[in-house]
């Protein structure tokens, strides 16, 4: 968790309880598509098998600390959306590790986690973003103090159950072809 990246999410709703987002490393025309995120309501999260829950992170801290924000959107409007996001869970997969300087997307996908408490965020990363976007995380934090998280509390199996998740690549025998008709096209 010592490697942290600033991420710009561009999200669309499938319905009230489900969003899907493309993640870029910067909000510009040459932004690199580094990953994606799915965001679901607490109700949907609770339907996931226990084995799956570890992939998902809570959003409460990110929202309440002010580090999650919508550039260009006035505070009062943003906060209406943040009230909802604070109760959700997200699954983020990155395919491109730009933070370690990869100029191409190399290796296998990484499961990302989110900040869950003070002291985790790299302060240089924070101050740099505050400066560029003209925001103050501390001021926002006060304005968001009233917001609440998931109704049943943050699930203990979420946030990787407190561990890290490492993805590994395994070479396996290819599954044999079934006897289905196939043609050359």
């Amino acid at each position, binding site marked *: 968790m010592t490697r942290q990246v600033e991420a710009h999410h561009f999200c669309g709703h499938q319905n009230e309880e489900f969003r899907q987002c493309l993640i870029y490393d910067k909000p510009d025309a040459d932004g690199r598509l580094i990953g994606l995120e799915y965001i679901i309501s607490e109700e*949907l999260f609770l339907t996931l098998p226990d084995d799956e829950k570890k992939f998902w992170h809570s959003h409460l801290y990110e929202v309440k600390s002010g580090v999650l924000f919508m550039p260009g959107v006035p505070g009062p409007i943003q906060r209406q959306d943040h009230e909802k996001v604070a109760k959700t869970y997200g699954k983020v997969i990155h395919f491109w590790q730009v933070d370690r300087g990869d100029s191409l997307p190399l290796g296998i*996908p990484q499961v990302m986690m989110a900040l869950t408490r003070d002291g985790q965020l790299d302060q240089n990363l924070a101050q740099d973003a505050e400066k560029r976007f003209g925001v103050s995380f501390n001021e926002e934090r006060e304005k968001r103090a009233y917001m609440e998280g998931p109704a049943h509390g943050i699930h203990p199996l979420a946030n990787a159950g407190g561990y890290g998740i490492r*993805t*590994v*690549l*395994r070479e396996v025998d290819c599954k044999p072809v079934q006897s289905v008709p196939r043609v050359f*096209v």
Partner: protein
Amino acid sequence: MAATTRGSHGHGEQIPPGKAMSTEQHILDKGAEMLQSLTPVKQMNQHVCTFALYNHDMNRQIETHHYVTRVNQDFLQCAVYDSDHSHARLIGVEYIVSDRIFETLPKEEQKLWHSHAYEIKSGLWVNPRVPEMVVKKDLENFAKTYGKFWCTWQTDRGDKLPVGAPSLMMSPQAVNLGMVKPELIQKRDDRYNMSTDAIKRTRLEIPEPEWLNPEADYWKQHGKCFEIHVEDVEMKKIAPFP
């Protein structure tokens, strides 16, 4: 598929599940859309429809819709959806590199990539509703490229929510395991009112690449496939987590 209702999967079962959008959320989204630039997303300038195979189970094949951004002459990035509808589900990301870039990659990395030549020559890779003439030059270039496609939501097997680890996807190839099922192609032909077979014939002149790197399409050359597994590990951190 063309006639299915928003979010449904043919059986009246909703994928993903969830309550309908509230008016408030519609207004919030519209407001954000007006106030924010959304610049990176607006760089997508091509819709490619093609097919892909799960490397860990190549009997499972899917139709894919790639929304492509050209970053430079040698590199493209694609958001991949399972249809071209407004409610299309975001199922993964593909990166595309030129043969020039591909040859510079380490061998271990090359194993994860697939070639595009057959997909293009066979007419499987199309830009729906765009005349072939318009894309011909582009297709010639694409025929020499390699792609790396990670699928994160297996909607084809009916997963209501994106579960599990990402899957590495492979491209169709002219050998048994790599051939796309005729019914999948027929379904697409019907929907777009086109003939993949006729398109294939118009592409005869597109040159085959003189060299296809044998590390790409690893399964085809080596009979081995790849799967992603996950392990719990102790995390390096600056403060307690979570």
